């Protein structure tokens, strides 16, 4: 490259970086490099969200990585770069235990430059199969790689392709499911924002394998940057004849369209996603028939998750065996996890399947952000479950997690410390699924509502002795008889918390106590003698529930207090606590 000798400043502009202020940092550098020989570039998220904004300085011989860069620092940093005094703040512990396949380019290339991707062997896998691998061979390669669906269910990808390939039809479709709806999971967003061509290449390979001419990328509406970058990538790929008619002159026609979701969690469910592309409400239909037989507009359709497709080019390039070397017995390869919640180093982690939760949380994530003990880990979002600290040695693979009452899901790992109430977490998820229920089947529409009402009254301190039994009864029947996976799995957060934290439920119901001191109905805020009467809390209290003359100790009026905790968080003297 002609930039070889130049020093490049590369700012991470993923949504997470931008939310930490990376755009402003980028603009500040843009202004500051004027008149220097420095080049400014951007990339997307490298997964180290806890360090955002991240700025890499690419020198001739090495790369220096800077964390938590603020605009104010920019002139000083420019100075240090120009004077060769810049110091690396890279956090090696976070990366050293990872095996990056899907994320290999994230944070290293400019996602809006197709050449950056091509320089990293981009589209070589597509070219390779178009040159001399038959679709059946592609499928058998994917089968022997052991790759399983990364969206949650873990269905073997090769088998899924084979089913779609074997469906007889003139027309077939492939869809990339980028409707990443699990709260707490963001790997699909990061992959599309950081390496969109990899997803397109994977989708094109799947199209070739099953015999489809058209592909869709269904991206959720809440990801505007991902939409922008994938659209740009499609345009660039078409211009290079990597998509479109007669790709690379090798006779394969393949077109990709982007469909933007409009905000509905259930559209992550295959049949609902198809309904959404068809312009309908995202209401799931009964399976069978499966999309592989009758999907989009009634034609055989194959749907894969972003991460699944992003692994495909690597598998084709390096061979199935190499991929299958990674991972566990029944779960091959690597998996990207998003580490969030009360964790010191939150971000994206790509590790071999089968690594223990403890390793991921303590060795990569460096433990809780509060320093307090881990109470539980939530895996798999609203369809998943909460595992207690005592289960942290569980290897993260599909079967082990399922056996413990959680699921791999899309890979969200939310860490919770002892200040999190497990009943409240169950309530939170039920509130989520209830709101997202499409309303079609009775058990999901009404059953989850009644479960939510029971959980709400428990967290308000109005629980009844029979509530635990009612929850279990509802959960088992909703789980068995709902129409789609959203409904079938909706009770999981309740079942897993009941399994491991039943005593917390009982405490709420019988002793009217929340040990995490988080359920509003069961706590009280108090002001201690440390109060100097500064009035900060009085001004902040939304309920006007704090009384007191300036410079005198204040009082909380219990009847007015809505227990929002704002007073405690604004007090600068630690004079307010709750119990």
């Amino acid at each position: 490259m002609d930039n070889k000798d130049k020093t490049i400043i590369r700012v991470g502009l993923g949504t997470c970086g931008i939310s930490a202020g990376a755009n402003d940092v980028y603009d500040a550098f843009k202004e500051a490099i004027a008149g220097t020989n420095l080049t400014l570039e951007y990339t997307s998220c490298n997964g180290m969200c806890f360090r955002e904004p991240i700025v890499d300085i690419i020198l001739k011989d090495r790369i220096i990585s800077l964390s938590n860069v603020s605009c104010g620092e920019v002139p000083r940093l420019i100075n240090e770069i120009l004077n060769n005094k810049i110091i690396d703040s890279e956090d090696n512990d976070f990366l050293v235990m990872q095996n990056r396949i899907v994320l290999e380019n994230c944070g290293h290339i400019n996602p809006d430059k197709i050449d950056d991707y091509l320089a990293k062997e981009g589209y070589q896998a597509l070219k390779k199969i178009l040159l001399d691998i038959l679709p059946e061979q592609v499928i058998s390669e994917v089968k022997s790689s052991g790759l399983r669906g990364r969206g949650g269910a873990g269905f073997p990808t090769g088998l899924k392709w084979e089913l779609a390939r074997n469906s007889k039809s003139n027309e077939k479709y492939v869809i990339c499911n980028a409707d990443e709806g699990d709260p707490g999971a963001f790997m699909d967003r990061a992959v599309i924002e950081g390496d969109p061509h990899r997803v397109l290449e994977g989708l094109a390979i799947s199209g070739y394998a099953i015999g489809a001419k058209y592909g869709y990328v269904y991206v959720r509406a809440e990801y505007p940057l991902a939409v922008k970058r994938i659209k740009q990538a499609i345009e660039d790929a078409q211009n290079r004849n990597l998509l479109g008619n007669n790709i690379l002159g090798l006779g394969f026609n393949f077109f990709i369209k982007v469909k933007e979701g409009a905000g509905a969690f259930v559209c992550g469910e295959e049949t609902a996603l198809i309904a959404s592309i068809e312009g309908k409400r995202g209401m799931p239909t009964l399976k069978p028939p499966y999309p592989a037989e009758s999907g989009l507009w009634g034609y055989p359709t194959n749907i894969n998750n972003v991460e699944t497709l992003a692994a495909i080019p690597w598998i084709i390039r390096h061979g199935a065996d190499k991929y299958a070397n990674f991972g566990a017995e029944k779960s091959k390869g690597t998996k990207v996890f998003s580490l969030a919640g009360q964790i010191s180093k939150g971000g994206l982690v790509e590790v071999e399947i089968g690594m223990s939760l403890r390793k991921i949380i303590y060795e990569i994530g460096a433990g809780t952000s509060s320093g307090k003990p881990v109470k539980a880990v939530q895996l798999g979002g609203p369809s998943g479950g909460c595992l207690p600290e005592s289960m942290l040695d569980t290897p993260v693979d599909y079967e082990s997690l399922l056996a413990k009452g959680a699921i791999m899901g899309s890979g969200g790992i939310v860490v919770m410390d002892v200040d999190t109430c497990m009943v409240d977490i169950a309530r939170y998820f039920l509130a989520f699924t209830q709101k997202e229920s499409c309303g079609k089947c009775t058990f999901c529409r009404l059953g989850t509502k009644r479960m939510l009402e029971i959980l709400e009254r428990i967290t308000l301190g109005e629980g009844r002795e029979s509530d635990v039994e009612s929850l279990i009864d509802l959960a088992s029947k909703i789980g068995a008889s709902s129409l789609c996976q959203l409904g079938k799995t909706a009770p999981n957060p309740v079942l897993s918390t009941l399994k491991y934290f039943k005593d917390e439920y009982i405490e709420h119901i019988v002793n009217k106590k929340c040990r995490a001191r988080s359920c509003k109905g069961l706590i009280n805020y108090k002001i201690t003698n440390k109060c100097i009467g500064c009035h900060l809390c009085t001004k902040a209290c939304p309920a006007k529930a704090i009384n007191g003359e300036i410079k005198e100790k204040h009082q909380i009026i219990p009847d007015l207090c809505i227990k929002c905790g704002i007073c405690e968080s604004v007090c600068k003297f630690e004079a307010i606590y709750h119990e």
Partner: protein
Amino acid sequence: MQKSAEFYVNEYGVDEAKTIPILQAIQADYGYLPIKLMQEVCEKSNIHYNRMYGVATFYSQFNLTPKGKNIIRFCAGTACHVKGAEKLIIAVSEELKIRVNETTSNGLFSLETVACLGCCSLAPVMMINDKVYGKMTIAKVKEILMDYKQHHGQ
């Protein structure tokens, strides 16, 4: 510029599959989905009334009434919940004197929650219009809102 039903049908097509893109375009142009316009689109396309309205009320992106000039969306994802997003929502509610899904009387702000924005490591997260703000605290939120009141009022 507010466009006619004809425009949307010509631009996006007449099939039911175009329902969501058409509604997204109308929402982007108008800030909401005017009932009459939706009905006119139906009349000029193959989209049925019941389907159009069903879609418009199904997806959380769409709204049938106008919103404020600035839309504040608090992430209601798991990580944000665990990190106390609820307190922030109460604080903003109080600051703006509106509840979630309401608009201030001067039309400046609407307050909403949104399913995970995917910035979990920066929880709690807030989005104003298209801009995402991470690691929010009550003080930071108030500061940002003040800035909007001063600079994004007109």
